[in-house]
C-alpha cells in the first residue's frame, strides 16, 4: 500500500496539475495547516489505549461518562438576563416551560463590577446587558417560583462571585432548601478576566485568594455546587486562537489548583467540583478536537502532575457556548445556520451542557422568539439527528485524532512558555496574554478585511439587510431598582447589616476565609456595592496598563 507522502507526491500532485486547488486558506481557523488527506500514517503517533481508551475512563478523551448522551443528554442551559429581576424571572419561567433543563444568569455591568444600581457609575447601564442584582431582595425576586433543590442554576459572575453566590444560597436557605441538595455553578474565574474580558475589580493576588476561599468552603458546605467554571469562552471571544483558548484556560485551571494546594487543601476534596467552559466556533473539526484534547490534558495533569487519586478529580466537565463573535449583524438569519453547526460540534466534542446563541445577538439582547429558536436548535440535534445515539462517534478519524494530538502538543508548549514567565499571574502582569490574544485577533481581522477568509454576508454574498425585531430594555429598570434598593436599606436591621460588613472587613484583613462573612452579609441584606466597597478598601483596585 502506498503511504501518505508518496500518494501526495504522485497521485495528488498529478491530479492538482490538471485541476488546481481552490484559492483558499487550507488551515484551521486557528492557523493549523490542513493536509489534503489524513491516513493511518497520521494516527501512528496515537496510542489507542493510552490516548483514547473508553468513555468514562482515563484519560477521558472520549467523554467523562461511559454512556454519555445515551444515558443523559447534555444540559440545555440558555444564558438569560435583562432588565429587572421580575423580567428575567419571567424569562426563566418561559425557558423552563419550553423544555430547558437548567438556568443560566446574565448580570448587568454594574453588578459584574460590584456597584449598586443607584451608583453614579451605573447610570445608563442598569439592566442593559443582564439583570441587576444589588441585594438578596433582588435575588429573591429573580428566583421566585423556582425550586433551588431541583433546578440547577449557573451564574456568570466573577469579581463579586463570592457575594452573589452567598446571596443565592441565602435565597435558597430562606426557602427552606437543604444546601446539600442545592446545585449550580458560579463562573468565578478571575484569571480570564485579566486575560480577556476585563471585568476585574481587585489586583490579581487578592482576587485569586477570594477564588480559593470558594474552593475551601464550597465542598464542605454546598457539595453539589461547581464553585468555578474555568473559562476559555471569553479568551476566544477576545480574539484568541482555539489553541490559545485551550492552553490559557487549562493553565488558569492549573494555577487555581496550585494556589489551593498552597493553602493546604486536599486535591481530591476540591478538584471534582472544578468545571470548565469553552467556546464552540466555526471550524468544525478543530472545535471537536479542542474538547477532546482538553479532557485528555486535564486528566493527565491532575493525575500525573498533581497526584489526584479520585477519578472525579481527573474528569474535565464542561459547558459550551456557540461563538458570539462569529455572529454577524449582516443578514442576521444566517446566524441560525452558524449556531446549528457550532452546536453540533459542541455535542460531537462531548460537552456536558450547552448554550446556543440567538441569531439576533450581533444587534441586541435576544428576543424571546430568537432565544426559543436557539433552544429548538439543540432539541433538533438531540432528538432528530441521531448523533446522540453513540458515544464519541468521530473517534478514530485520521484527521480528528491527528488534530486532537496536535492541539495537545501546542497547548503543552504554551504551558512551558507561561511557566518560564513565572506563572499565570506574572504572565498577566507582563502583558503576555494581551499580546498573544491581540496579535491573533488582528491577524483574523486582516484575513477577513483582505478577503483571504470569506464570511458569508460580510465580505462575500452580500445583500440588503432585512430588518429584524429586537429586544428592548424597559427604561423603567433603573427606577424599579432604585426603589427596591431604598426599601432594602430602610427596612433591614441596620445593626445586623453593619456588624456583617464589619465581619467581612475583619475576614478580609486577617486573610481568613471570607465565605461565612459573605453569607451573613447576604442574610443581613447588605448591598453588593457595600460589600465590594469594603473589599476595595482592603485590597485596592486594579488598573491594567493600556496597550494597543
Amino acid at each position, binding site marked *: 500500500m502506498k503511504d501518505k507522502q508518496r500518494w501526495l507526491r504522485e497521485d495528488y500532485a498529478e491530479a492538482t496539475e490538471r485541476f488546481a486547488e481552490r484559492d483558499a486558506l487550507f488551515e484551521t481557523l486557528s492557523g493549523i495547516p490542513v493536509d489534503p488527506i489524513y491516513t493511518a500514517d497520521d494516527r501512528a503517533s496515537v496510542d489507542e489505549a493510552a490516548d483514547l481508551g473508553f468513555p468514562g475512563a482515563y484519560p477521558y478523551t472520549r467523554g467523562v461518562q461511559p454512556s454519555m448522551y445515551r444515558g443523559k443528554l447534555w444540559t440545555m442551559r440558555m444564558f438569560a438576563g435583562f432588565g429587572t429581576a421580575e423580567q428575567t424571572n419571567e424569562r426563566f419561567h418561559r425557558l423552563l416551560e419550553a423544555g430547558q433543563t437548567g438556568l443560566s444568569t446574565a448580570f448587568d*455591568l*454594574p453588578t*459584574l*463590577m460590584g*456597584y449598586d444600581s443607584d451608583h453614579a*457609575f*451605573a*447610570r*445608563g*447601564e442598569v439592566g*442593559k*446587558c443582564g439583570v441587576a442584582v444589588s441585594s438578596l431582595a433582588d435575588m429573591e425576586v429573580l428566583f421566585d417560583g423556582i425550586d433551588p433543590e431541583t433546578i440547577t442554576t449557573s451564574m456568570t459572575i466573577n469579581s463579586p462571585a463570592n457575594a452573589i453566590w452567598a446571596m443565592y444560597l441565602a435565597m435558597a436557605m430562606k426557602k427552606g432548601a437543604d444546601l446539600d441538595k442545592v446545585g449550580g455553578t458560579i463562573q468565578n474565574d478571575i484569571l480570564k*478576566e485579566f486575560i480577556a*474580558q*476585563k*471585568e*476585574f475589580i481587585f489586583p490579581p493576588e487578592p482576587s485569586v485568594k477570594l477564588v480559593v476561599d470558594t474552593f475551601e468552603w464550597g465542598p464542605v458546605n454546598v457539595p453539589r455546587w461547581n464553585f468555578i467554571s474555568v473559562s476559555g469562552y471569553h479568551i476566544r*471571544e*477576545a*480574539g484568541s486562537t482555539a489553541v490559545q483558548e485551550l492552553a490559557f484556560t487549562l493553565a488558569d485551571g492549573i494555577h487555581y489548583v496550585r494556589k489551593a494546594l498552597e493553602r493546604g487543601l486536599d486535591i481530591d476534596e476540591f478538584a471534582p467540583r472544578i468545571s470548565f467552559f469553552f467556546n464552540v466556533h466555526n471550524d468544525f473539526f478543530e472545535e471537536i478536537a479542542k474538547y477532546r484534547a482538553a479532557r485528555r490534558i486535564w486528566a493527565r495533569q491532575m493525575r500525573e502532575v498533581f497526584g489526584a487519586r479520585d477519578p472525579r478529580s481527573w474528569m474535565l466537565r464542561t459547558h459550551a457556548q456557540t461563538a458570539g*463573535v462569529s*455572529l*454577524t*449583524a*449582516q443578514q442576521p438569519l444566517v446566524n441560525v445556520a452558524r449556531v446549528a453547526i457550532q452546536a453540533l460540534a459542541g455535542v460531537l466534542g462531548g460537552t456536558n451542557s450547552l448554550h446556543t446563541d440567538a441569531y439576533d*445577538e*450581533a*444587534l*441586541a*439582547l435576544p428576543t424571546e422568539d430568537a432565544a426559543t429558536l436557539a433552544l429548538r436548535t439543540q432539541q433538533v440535534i438531540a432528538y432528530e439527528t441521531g448523533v446522540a445515539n453513540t458515544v464519541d462517534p468521530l473517534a478514530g478519524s485520521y484527521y480528528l485524532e491527528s488534530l486532537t494530538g496536535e492541539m495537545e502538543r501546542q497547548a503543552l508548549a504554551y504551558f512551558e512558555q507561561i511557566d518560564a514567565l513565572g506563572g499565570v499571574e506574572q504572565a498577566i502582569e507582563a502583558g503576555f496574554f494581551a499580546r498573544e490574544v*491581540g496579535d491573533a*485577533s*488582528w491577524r483574523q*481581522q486582516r484575513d*477577513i*478585511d483582505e478577503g483571504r477568509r470569506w*464570511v458569508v*454576508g*460580510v*465580505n462575500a454574498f452580500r445583500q440588503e*439587510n432585512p*430588518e429584524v425585531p*429586537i429586544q428592548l*430594555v424597559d427604561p423603567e429598570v433603573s427606577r424599579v431598582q432604585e426603589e427596591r434598593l431604598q426599601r432594602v436599606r430602610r427596612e433591614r436591621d441596620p445593626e445586623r447589616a453593619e456588624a456583617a460588613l464589619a465581619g467581612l472587613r475583619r475576614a478580609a484583613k486577617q486573610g481568613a476565609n471570607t465565605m461565612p462573612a459573605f453569607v451573613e452579609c447576604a442574610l443581613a441584606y447588605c448591598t453588593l456595592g457595600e460589600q465590594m466597597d469594603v473589599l476595595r478598601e482592603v485590597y485596592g483596585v486594579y*488598573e*491594567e496598563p*493600556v496597550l*494597543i
Partner: protein
Amino acid sequence: MERPIRVLIAKPGLDGHDRGAKVIARALRDAGMEVIYTGLRQTGAMIVNAAIQEDVDAVGLSVLSGAHMHYFREVVEGLAARGAEDILVFGGGIVPDQDLAALDELGVGAIFTPGANTRDVVEYLRREVPERRRAGV
C-alpha cells in the same frame, strides 16, 4: 503637508470587551493616523477632556453593552458644551438599526457594527475629517 488625522478611540462605561476598540486602533494606526486609546472604564467627561486635550479630529466610541444612547449623548453634548462640536464622534459595537436614526439626530457620525471592514473605517475618516477641517476654516 496636511497634518495626519488624529483619533481618540474610547471605551466608555463599565464594559471590558476591548477587542473591537483595539483592532480599530491598530487599523487606523497602520493607515498612518495618530491614534490615542483611552483604556477601559472611561466616563463621558473623561473622554471629552481627553479629546480636547489631545486636540483630536475624531472620537470613536466602542460600546457593546447596550448603553450606547447614554454614552454617545454624554460625549456629543460634553464636546458641544466645551465649544468642540467640530470633533467628529463616530463609533462601533452592538447597536441595532432602530437606534441609528436617534444617534444621527444627535449628530453622531457613522456606526460600524459586527462584521464591519476596518478599511471602511479608514476610508470613512479619510473622507470625513478633511471635509470637517475645511468646513471649520
